[in-house]
């Protein structure tokens, strides 16, 4: 099996004015293609920052980040954006959806950004919503959906361009246990279909399903 994600001494610090906050100190890790990985750790210790780095949403201040063979910490912004669109699907804790758009439009938008023609967008979006069990909610606006339904729409959208990697930052953090279980079942199905799933979580329920757990503490990975 190949490593699909790899970091070498990745570090990230934020400067705001005179104050520098170091979110990640020195992280070297590898994530296998097709694996189901959980990142856990106390709040404010750098989990989200790590997820942003490995998904190409942000760049490390030091060290290297690879997706496959590509050192994404060095490629230009526009290439990085394209790579996010094609190879990575993100789901965040809340407010994932564009509030003015319907569920199906939210799914379509990811394909629009990848240059998929209008009609094909619609066909695929219908299938994806069916996959997450929300076929009948295609025309609903986010405000008309429950928290769990919104997260499933976000997952459908993350899958829109058939990425290898799904990165989720506390996707069930806002959900009750029933909704959480539904989302987890969905993720497990996707994992079985070959997706690499990385979830940042506080939830033991989520961690139980993981093949591997990475603990982040104080900006470092505890081995």
């Amino acid at each position, binding site marked *: 099996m190949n490593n699909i994600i790899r970091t070498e001494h990745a570090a990230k610090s934020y400067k705001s004015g005179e104050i520098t906050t170091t979110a990640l100190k020195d992280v070297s890790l590898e994530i296998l293609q097709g694996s189901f990985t959980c990142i856990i750790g106390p709040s404010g210790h750098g989990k989200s920052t790590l997820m*942003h780095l490995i*998904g190409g*949403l*942000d760049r490390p201040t030091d060290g290297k980040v690879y997706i496959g063979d590509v050192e994404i910490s060095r490629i230009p*912004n*526009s290439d990085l*954006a*394209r*790579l*996010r*669109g*094609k190879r990575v699907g*993100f789901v*965040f804790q809340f*407010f*994932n*959806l*564009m*509030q*003015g*758009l319907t569920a199906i*439009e939210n799914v*379509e*938008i*990811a*394909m*629009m*950004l*990848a240059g998929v023609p*209008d009609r094909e*967008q619609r066909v695929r979006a219908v299938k994806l919503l069916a996959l997450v069990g929300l076929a009948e909610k295609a025309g609903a606006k986010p405000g008309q959906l429950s928290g769990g339904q919104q997260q499933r729409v976000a997952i459908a*959208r993350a899958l829109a*361009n058939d990425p290898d990697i799904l990165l989720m930052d506390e996707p069930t953090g806002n959900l009750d246990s029933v909704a959480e279980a539904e989302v987890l079942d969905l993720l497990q199905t996707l994992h079985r279909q070959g997706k690499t799933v990385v979830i940042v979580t506080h939830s033991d329920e989520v961690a139980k399903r993981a093949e591997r757990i990475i603990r982040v503490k104080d900006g470092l990975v505890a081995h």
Partner: protein
Amino acid sequence: MNLSKLVYKNITRRRGRFLFTLLGITIGIASFVTFMALGGSLKDEIHRETAALGANLVVIPKGSCGYEQLSILTGDQMPTNISAAEIATIRAIKGLTVVPFLAQQTAINNKPVTVSGIEPEATLAFKRWQISQGAYFSNPDETGVVIGATAARQFDLKPGATVTVRGEKLPVLGILGETGGRDDATLFLSLPVAQRLFKSADKVSYAAIRVDDLARTEGYIEKIREATGLGVVSDKQMLKSVLGIVGTVNITLQMIAAVSVLAAAFGIINTMMAATYERKREIGILQALGARRRTIFLLFMLESGFYGIIGGVTGVITGLATAVIVTPYISQNAFTTFVKGSGSGDIIDIKMIAGSILFSTVVAIVAGIYPAWRAARLTPVEAISYE
């Protein structure tokens, strides 16, 4: 989903803000269009009136400025400071055809009308008028009025009717044929009758002159000045000074229009800034989904450009409607009589319409640059971490 559909959904998400911003642009472009329409027809009208006057030279009281010259073209009331003796002196110069006018105003049904005292025979020859109904003056001091075609239509006057001027009932003698100039909206009296009614015995307001030999125009100007001490201008000079006055008015109108367009532009900036702020997180989501910075920039630029196009269309419609509806109600004065005289056919001009919509779009796009740049400059993490 495509970019323009997304832009449309975004822009109409906040109905109230959308409508008020649109109203701002509509008002800005409407005032621009109204003033352009009025200002444009003003200039055309001056050219037309100068041609209709048919004079090479105009004699006016000494020390007159452009405003008096403008009054000649608009049919405004003028001082009567030129004496019969001075007219006679000018007539003594060979090679000139001289026609004096007494320029006054009266009211019919409370609407102001230009009254012109003329020497019937001389003026008829000079202006080459046609008589469409009734008869012309049959002697030099006949009591009665001859009416321009537009005025006759406007007040529904026919030969045999009477018109009251300065408290005296005068019979309508005849109606002139269409001339295309100010004369169409004028009441003509014989000079002696006009002088009696307006209490200016032996005086006139100005004289129009045609010269036999155009090459000697400059010489004639000198001769008349020396002989009478009156002011003399050529038609070209008159055109220039009158256009100068109108130009000043136009600039003032254009500045008002510019200020309202500027206010509208700030309205767009304001709205777009609010939109970038509100949608900060959505910008981050879009970036996570693979949107490049230029896509974010384009998204916001299209949104402000959309305001420009829609606002341009509504602004042009409102502006033209205002120009057409308001024009007849503008009170009579030297500048606005021109506007009143011009038909609405002149106001609606395809080039002006297209130009105004383009202008509106360009203004909106320029106004959108800064907010769009701010939106595109956000890094994904900045945008996502925002709650």
